[in-house]
């Protein structure tokens, strides 16, 4: 136990050791997080009128970001599967970073849901015995379980492996392998359950569509690896941790396949919506072409489609075999999927309203600041975890300093 406290103390000390660049980066993220916190405080006082949401469009940017990020968290499984099931040695160099990313992103998801609540101080109403948990009736209660479960699984696996490295001993397989396999199924479940939140609503024909969960997974397995590829390059540039090109190109292959499936499913969706002009296609009409003179999302979705098409083009062409090209592909895919899957999925579910009204939605400045704050906080959390994990991973931080490897 004492050893563990020494470990925590050293981790804490390590958190504040760094170059001026590290300090500048962390300060910047802290400041933006605090600006977001400040915007949320305004929202608590004045109510959700500080957002652009209305009775007709009752979910907006918060839930859009939440949905997208659940996918990014689930995508950690794309490192775990090659590493543990296909025993790809090179993936073991990076699998921990995927788990740390999942932790940071799940925290962001939970924050996005919290800021969306009208009464966040009543969250204990969900926790028995203080509250009433509507399980298994409400899919939202399923989501609470799977998201928190996934957070705990990843905290355990990453924490345990790191601590073993620090103690310079082999991890006991029994203590983590079963959890790793559980986390694979669990990762799929978080995104499927999140899709079911929408798919389960028979009154919203745009969402009441069995393709949604498959598309969620396919697009998640593009956006998640895209972010990881970019992160890995930052890690190998600014730290003493070696990441070869192999894991990066394994991820590129995964991204390419997932993006092809995603675009194929998009095509299926578009065909179904537009070949026979039913009333159920009204939301898709609003999204892609505008409805009754309202076309707020039209430039938005075509930007997404353009980015995703360019991203796919880059991925399947030899251009992305070079790192520069791959980075460009990752950037376009990540932004493209964020655009399409967030606002492009959530808002048309509400437009037109079930009674046929077209009310458009635009996030306010305050709402945008809250979103930026949460993104920034997520980046802060992830940067901190990497900052602490890497010296343990590369052997420069050890329980007994004599066993530490010098990184000169």
């Amino acid at each position: 136990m004492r050893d563990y406290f020494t470990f925590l103390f050293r981790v804490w000390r390590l958190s504040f050791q760094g170059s001026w660049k590290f300090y500048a980066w962390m300060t910047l993220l802290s400041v933006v997080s605090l600006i977001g916190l400040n915007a949320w405080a305004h929202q608590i006082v004045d109510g959700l009128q500080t957002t652009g949401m209305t009775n007709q469009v009752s979910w907006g940017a918060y839930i859009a970001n939440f949905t997208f990020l659940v996918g990014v968290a689930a995508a950690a499984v794309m490192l775990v599967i090659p590493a543990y099931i296909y025993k790809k040695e090179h993936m073991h160099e990076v699998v921990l970073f995927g788990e740390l990313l999942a932790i940071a992103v799940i925290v962001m998801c939970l924050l996005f849901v919290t800021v969306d609540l009208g009464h966040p101080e009543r969250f204990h109403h969900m926790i028995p015995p203080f509250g009433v948990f509507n399980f298994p009736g409400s899919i939202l209660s399923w989501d609470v379980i799977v998201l928190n479960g996934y957070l705990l699984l990843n905290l355990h696996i990453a924490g345990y492996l790191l601590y073993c490295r620090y103690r310079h001993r082999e991890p006991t397989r029994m203590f983590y392998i079963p959890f790793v396999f559980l986390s694979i199924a669990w990762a799929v479940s978080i995104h499927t359950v999140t899709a079911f939140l929408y798919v389960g609503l028979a009154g919203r024909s745009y969402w009441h569509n069995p393709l949604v969960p498959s598309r969620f997974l396919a697009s998640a397995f593009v956006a998640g690896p895209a972010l990881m590829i970019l992160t890995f390059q930052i890690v190998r540039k600014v730290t003493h941790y070696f990441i070869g090109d192999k894991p990066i190109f394994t991820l590129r292959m995964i991204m390419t396949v997932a993006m092809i499936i995603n675009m194929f499913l998009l095509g299926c969706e578009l065909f179904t919506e537009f070949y026979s002009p039913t009333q159920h296609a009204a939301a898709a009409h609003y999204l892609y072409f505008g409805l009754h003179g309202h076309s707020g999302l039209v430039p938005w979705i075509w930007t997404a489609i353009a980015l995703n098409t360019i991203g796919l083009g880059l991925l399947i062409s030899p251009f992305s075999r070079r790192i520069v090209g791959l980075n460009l592909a990752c950037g376009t895919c990540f932004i493209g999927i964020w655009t399409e899957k967030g606002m492009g999925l959530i808002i048309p579910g509400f437009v037109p309203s079930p009674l046929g009204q077209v009310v458009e939605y635009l996030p306010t400045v305050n709402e945008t600041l809250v979103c930026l704050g949460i993104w920034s906080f997520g980046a802060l959390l992830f940067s901190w975890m990497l900052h602490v994990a890497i010296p343990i991973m590369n052997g420069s931080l050890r329980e007994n300093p004599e066993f530490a490897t010098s990184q000169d």
Partner: protein
Amino acid sequence: MNHDPQDTVSPRTIEQVYKPIDRRTFLKGSAVAMVGVAGLMAALKPLLALESGETTLDDLLQKHYRELKPEDLKKIMAALEAKTEKQYGVRPTIRDLKPIPGVEFGYALNLTRCIGCRKCAHACLKENNQSRDDAQDIEMSYIRVLEMNKGAINLETSSVYYDPETVPQKGKYYMPAQCHQCRQSPCTKVCPVQATWQEPDGVVVVDYNWCIGCRYCMAACPYDARRFNYKKPSLTKDQINPNQSYLSNRIRPKGVVEKCTFCLHRTRDGKYPACLEVCPTGARVFGNLLDPDSEINYILNNKRVYVLKEEVGTLPRFYYFFDK
């Protein structure tokens, strides 16, 4: 890119980690911590504007309506009365009316008679203490009256913002929509905390003191029947109806969902809903579905009845019908 990887954590900084904290580091750390705390306080400063007593410890510890003992509920309702008086200058009477055994409410609306005057939507506001900014603001009313084009029942081409000199307009007919008090209610199914449920008389209610404001029920509702309090309700003293009940028309706090309750504070007291009383054409019929001799049962058995969005499978207790 030429890069010095020693930027972040160098062996020298790792050395530091093993050593005990010296005086210099301690002072530096304290200074940083002070700046951090100051930043945090500054970020949270807007919270000082929260009205005192808006959320009390009692509120946080309150149980779900259906688990409350009668004496606890009494205390809570007294506290709510005092809070309303403090905030709005009117002391209401808040009651807790229970469902009447042997009663299941049903509502039918005659589309042949409705002229689209929207008196029902306005009466709803007056009765149920919804927020409004001016006399024309009926956004929070539980009733939306749709102006429909004759020749079809097409919601897609309807309008709720119609504003002609007189109604009805040529070529149009009117369809008021409100909560359908569904038997298979999607809204109650999705609520993660069971803050909304069906009462034995069929009315779907919300415990405003339990709702966490996630708005999942609004996404689930196929009839756009739910409203959210994006702000503290704006109501002047003379707009407030002091005859209130816990599960229906008491003034809602901000951040919770509200909806039509068939005016349960009236209907469980032997009166008609406010929207029915005000209707100038007698288009609205309300009654007990369990009473075979009720007018509502006569209509359901003898008229041409239409259920809105029957395909969604909600089995509403609200029906439309036609005379001829």
